[in-house]
């Protein structure tokens, strides 16, 4: 038995893919028996899904898991302060796109590659190849994986199928078409309501998360080859301008104060023909109790930019191990992460409404049987494939640079001189950027 | 011309009647004192004259003008309040000048009048001070000054001296009297202190339970009180009252008080006659009694034998509290050479011509 294991481990080191299909003996789940680990979690649907199942894991491993969950606003503060003060945190939820560089620089992220590669620690059935590559990349810093995705998101263009049919409009596939369709619908009166063409986030830092898809699709980038801010480049300026004009000309009033809540509610009120926002808001759009447009919504990947680029971003929550924890507990924490992200839980979470980062979950019969919006699933899969993991400025002080970026978006929405604003922001970003 | 006339003035607070059918006339340049115990309605009457209190019914005339519906500011009156009512945030100069400033007097005029008032009242050194930096007497002067500068037709004083100590009160009494002569204005002065009323008034208006009891010069109300209340209110110490009956013996009227019996002067006879045998109240002022040691063979018809209880020495005078049977009496007299001792038996002579007899039922004066 032991020999067989040893052999399997060696084989695994040589060829992990082979293991994933053949090894069934499994790892020793009891190897960290008696260890107690503490996880800080965002009070997120995934947390709600996994908490009642923790007892199973404790039974399987003999590890005691303490989960402390907080609402998102407080969670980030709480986590940062605990990690900084050296509190006993063994694992936590992280949004790598937001915090990975900062946490990595601060020395709070334990690389996971060694655990994943160790057949004594990682069961073959965990199958890392099953995760979408974009998310594995998104949960990595400098080539080292620092988290395992538990919630996978992207952004999609959602549109009113009924209106598009009624007015014989085609789903836009280019930015140019997007603007034309938005213009077409703006001011149209439907059921006594004046429509807007499209609704988008416009609220400073919050807007950057959706605007970034336009940035990439317009061929722009956060920084140039010299590592300086690229905001003053023609591509970046074009992206700022297009986004701002779209919202100002064809969007709801008060665009600069639209966060996702305001934007989605406008769409759900039936007042907008299109919305570009996170794909997971499908759950809102399709909820007949809250949404007047349930059942009437179609979904598409972001339209292509002038050079044909379609580059939406993907974002995710991951589970990470604290670098400051003790090795024994880190090992136990890895066992927990591994279990929480296995195929069974990936599917379970997806069926509970938490979008999984595992392809197998989406492909499963169980999911497909109950999928009421296959076009959403298709668009989401497509977006996952082409998605960019870097949806935030590649810096340590992400919030500060997002604020600087957001100011240009606000200026663009207000119709101010975008080039001047972008130039000023570029200078400020160069000054404030920490890498 | 600034006389003040009240006609059938009534003030009710809900069900309580504060002033009942008050009619009176204060003559031009007269110093009129409204006096009565607290709650008699005198302050309410004054406040109605001032316009601070709406009237329930009746009429008020100031200098022939009906002022019922006039604002206080249009009545050409000034008022001095019991609590001085100075403006705490203004210095004395501004306190004095405020009424003039409001009435848009020229600056120079205000200054002149303030100076004049300050001279009269001797408060020149206080002009820059705030009220909280003044003593009670100084505040009172400022309050007076504030009334003076306005040169109104009528001054209203609402117990202005009651917050001062006894000595200061005496001094201010004199000063206000002087002021009255100097200003030649009508003054209506409210007080509960009959001494103030007696010493300052041209005429006294005595009120009780919202109604006017008697009007007259100080000497009139002292010598000829209209009723039992006035008799008891005016004079200090108060008049002695004894319940008695009128009896006729040997052609003369006697006042029989049970413990003693005195003969009434003949001049009273005509008025006493209708009350024969009826219960009356016999009144005699302490100053109309003189006590002495029993002298052998004396004991006239108006001498009463008593016992001294307490002897209060006031200096040149003494007050002797006496018991005569069931009655208590107070006598006021010059201090005798030989001290009286308590418990001593004394004979008291009554100046019968100055005594009074009241109807017990109606409280009205018989003689």
């Amino acid at each position, binding site marked *: 038995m032991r020999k067989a294991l040893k052999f399997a481990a060696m084989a695994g080191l040589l060829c992990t893919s082979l293991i994933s299909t053949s090894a069934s003996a499994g790892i020793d789940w009891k190897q960290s028996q008696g260890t107690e680990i503490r996880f800080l979690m965002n009070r997120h649907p995934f947390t709600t899904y996994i908490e009642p199942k923790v007892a199973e894991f404790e039974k399987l491993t003999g590890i005691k898991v303490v989960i402390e969950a907080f609402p998102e606003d407080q969670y980030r503060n709480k986590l940062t302060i605990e990690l900084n003060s050296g509190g006993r945190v063994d694992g936590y939820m992280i949004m790598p796109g937001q915090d990975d560089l900062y946490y990595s*620089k601060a020395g709070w992220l334990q690389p996971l590659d060694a655990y994943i590669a160790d057949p004594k620690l990682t069961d073959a059935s965990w199958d890392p190849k099953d995760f979408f590559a974009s998310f594995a990349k998104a949960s990595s810093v400098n080539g080292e994986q620092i988290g395992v995705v538990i919630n996978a998101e992207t952004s999609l263009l959602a549109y009113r199928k009924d209106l598009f049919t009624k007015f014989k409009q085609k789903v836009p596939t280019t930015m140019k078409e997007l603007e034309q369709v938005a213009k077409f619908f703006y001011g149209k009166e439907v059921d006594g309501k004046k429509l807007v063409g499209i609704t988008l986030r416009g*609220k400073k830092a919050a807007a950057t998360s959706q605007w970034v898809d336009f940035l990439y699709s317009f061929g722009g980038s956060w920084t140039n080859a010299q590592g300086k801010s690229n905001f003053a480049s023609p591509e970046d300026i074009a992206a700022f301008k297009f986004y701002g004009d779209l919202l100002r000309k064809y969007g*709801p*009033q008060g665009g*600069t104060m639209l966060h996702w809540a305001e934007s989605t*509610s406008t769409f759900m009120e039936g007042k907008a023909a299109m919305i570009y926002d996170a794909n997971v808001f499908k759950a809102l759009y399709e909820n007949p109790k809250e949404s007047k447009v349930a059942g009437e919504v179609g979904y598409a990947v972001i339209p292509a930019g002038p050079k044909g680029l379609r580059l939406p971003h993907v974002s995710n929550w991951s589970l990470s191990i604290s670098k400051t924890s003790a090795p024994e507990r880190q090992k136990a924490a890895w066992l927990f992460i591994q279990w929480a992200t296995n195929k069974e839980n990936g599917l379970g979470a997806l069926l509970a409404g938490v979008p999984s980062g595992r392809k197998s979950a989406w492909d499963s019969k169980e999911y497909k049987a109950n999928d009421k919006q296959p076009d959403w699933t298709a668009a989401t899969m497509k977006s996952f494939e082409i998605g960019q993991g870097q949806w935030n400025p590649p810096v340590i002080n992400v919030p*500060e640079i997002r604020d600087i970026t957001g100011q240009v978006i606000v200026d663009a929405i207000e119709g101010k001189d975008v080039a001047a604003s972008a130039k000023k922001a570029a200078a400020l970003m160069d000054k404030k950027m920490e890498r | 011309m600034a006389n003040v006339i009240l006609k059938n003035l009534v003030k009710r607070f809900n069900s309580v009647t504060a002033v009942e059918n008050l009619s009176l006339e204060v003559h031009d340049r007269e110093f009129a004192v409204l006096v009565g115990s607290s709650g008699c309605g005198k302050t309410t009457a004054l406040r109605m004259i001032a316009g601070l209190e709406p009237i329930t019914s009746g009429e008020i005339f100031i200098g022939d003008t009906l002022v019922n519906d006039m604002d206080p500011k249009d009545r050409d009156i000034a008022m001095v309040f019991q609590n001085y*009512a100075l403006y705490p945030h203004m210095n004395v100069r501004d306190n004095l000048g405020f*009424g003039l400033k409001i009435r848009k007097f020229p600056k120079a005029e205000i200054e002149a009048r303030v100076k004049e008032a300050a001279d009269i009242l001797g408060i020149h050194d206080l002009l820059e001070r705030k009220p909280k930096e003044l003593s009670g007497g100084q505040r009172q002067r400022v309050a007076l000054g504030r009334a003076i500068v306005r040169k109104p037709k009528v001054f209203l004083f609402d117990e202005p001296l009651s917050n001062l100590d006894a000595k200061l009160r005496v001094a201010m009494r004199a000063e206000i009297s002087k002021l009255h002569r100097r200003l030649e204005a009508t003054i209506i002065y409210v007080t509960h202190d009959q001494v103030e009323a007696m010493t300052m008034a041209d005429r006294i208006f005595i009120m009780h339970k919202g109604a006017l009891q008697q009007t007259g010069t100080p000497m009139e109300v002292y010598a000829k009180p209209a009723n039992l209340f006035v008799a008891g209110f005016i004079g200090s110490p108060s008049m002695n009252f004894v319940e008695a009956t009128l009896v006729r013996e040997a052609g003369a009227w006697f006042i029989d008080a049970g413990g003693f019996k005195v003969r009434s002067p003949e001049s009273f006879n005509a008025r006493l006659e209708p009350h024969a045998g009826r219960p009356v109240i016999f009144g005699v002022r302490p100053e109309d009694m003189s006590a002495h040691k029993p002298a052998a063979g004396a004991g006239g018809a108006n001498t009463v034998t008593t016992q001294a209880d307490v002897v209060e020495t006031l200096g040149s005078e003494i007050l002797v509290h006496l018991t005569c049977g069931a009655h208590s009496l107070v006598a006021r007299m010059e201090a005798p050479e030989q001290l009286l001792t308590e418990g001593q038996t004394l004979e008291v002579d009554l100046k019968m011509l100055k005594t009074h007899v009241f109807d017990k039922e109606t409280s009205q004066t018989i003689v």
Partner: protein
Amino acid sequence: MTAALSAISRFVNRRQRFFFPAPAVAVLFLIIVLPIAFNLYLTFTKWTVGLGQPQFIGFGNFVEAFGDERVWNGVRVMIYFSGASLVLELTLGLMIALYFNRAFRGSEAVQAIYIIPFAATPVAVALIWRIMLNPEVGVINYLLRSVGLPPGLWVSNEHMVIPTLVMVDVWKWTPMITLIVLAGLKSLPPDPYEAARIDGANPLQIFWYITLPLIRPVLIAALMLRSLDNLKEFDLIYTITQGGPGIASETLYLYSYNVSFGYFKAGYGSALMVVVFLVVLVFNVIMNRLRRDSSVV
């Protein structure tokens, strides 16, 4: 044993003035003195939470603040917001207090309803206002439209945002000023009013020459009390606009919060907090002096 105990008790007994306050002093030191001292120390350092140790940089943070556009924007917004809201709250609060001071039928019921905004939780009412002010789905624009008035952009417009926030602040806090001023009015002596009526003052003059000077210390006290909160107004602005649109409603205090807890730049954030603190301090020292000068009793 007993000997030792009684020795201890003697020892403590003789030094009561040290021993009895000791726990309180220790707690005070831990929760007040230490954090303030640490904050002052951070003011002179560059430190992002998590990234290394605080580095001493002298007055570097203040130099940076001086050249930071958002600091100046914050000062401007703070002056605009606080100036407008404090003046309005004081004026309206005084006027309404004067109105309530004259008892009328049902005034107690009206007063009770009137103070509800003041009694309500700031974040809760701010959230409700945020929803009501939404230009598309908010009830305020709905009402305006239904009576034929043009809808407004409210907090969604950079020029409208401060007046709108001032309106909400005034709605929320004027009752507090009213309550304070009303208490002050009720304690004023009645006599000077009668004296003034006889002196010939009309109601307006009485208000100007008597009430206002007499109530001034109370007004200043109310202003001080309110300014303590108002100059570092947070709940309301953060909940309704988060400083937006852009930074159009980002007060210095909000910016210092963002720097400290959004960017985790503890050193710079502390320095900005100290600046806010100094502004509040200076304002209150001035007010306190005014109050002492105008006190009459």
